[in-house]
């Protein structure tokens, strides 16, 4: 099982490389402000994802220097596979919940 903050990070990095602050903003936008990762939670989760090999840090280029030295992160193939596995697992849980009439209301679905 992948912890939720790490999964959110992997999903955020699925389509584009992002630095920490951009990941936080992206997650907030995609969840309509329901999920906001603070700096502590965000960077400890980034550290976990880096250690697990799910993401990798991109080398700083001269073009990144205007971004105040922030590092960008990229999803690795292992990270993509891990996210797909976890999402498939969650999908199964949702299907089970639907069968048990536990599905959340549509307007509350993220």
């Amino acid at each position, binding site marked *: 099982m992948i912890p939720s903050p790490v999964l959110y990070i992997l999903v955020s990095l699925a389509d584009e490389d992002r630095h920490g602050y951009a990941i936080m903003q992206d997650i907030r936008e995609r969840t309509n402000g329901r999920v906001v990762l603070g700096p502590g939670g965000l*960077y400890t989760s980034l550290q976990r994802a880096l250690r697990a090999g799910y993401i990798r840090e991109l080398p700083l280029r001269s073009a990144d220097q205007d971004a105040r030295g922030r590092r960008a992160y990229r999803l690795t193939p292992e990270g993509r596979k891990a996210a797909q596995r976890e999402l498939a697992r969650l999908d199964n849980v949702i299907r089970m919940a639907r069968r048990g009439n536990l599905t959340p209301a549509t307007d509350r679905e993220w």
Partner: protein
Amino acid sequence: MQSAVFRSLLFLFPREFRARFADEISDYIALQYNAAQPAGRWATARVSVPICADLLIAAVKFRVSTLSVSRVALRTATTAAGLGAGIICLAIVLVLFEATVRSPLLAATEYGASELDVVIRLCALGAVLVGLSAWYTSLLPRPQKRR
């Protein structure tokens, strides 16, 4: 003032983590803080308090998770080293016992075996025991390396 508080909270994280992420976290906090500052003190407090709480909780969680990993690694390493050393010591004792006290192999000289033959047999026995202990030690789980 606030930045001093945030900076001091960063010291709750391990040094390795700070070295890697402290600048980025400070930058993140500055962006949030600067965005809230024009809206007044109340807005600033509404940003600052959750950030402080988040840093505090994240630091404690991170410390606890790191602690448990290092404890498991330490226990595994100690067990492996202890068992490996124990088997090697046992092998040495057996070889010494064989060579001095009981000495059935040395007694073989009485039945016509040469001393060189006895020494070779003792070395072979020692090598087998050391090899067995090395093989057993390699079977034990290795401590996880921190990346």
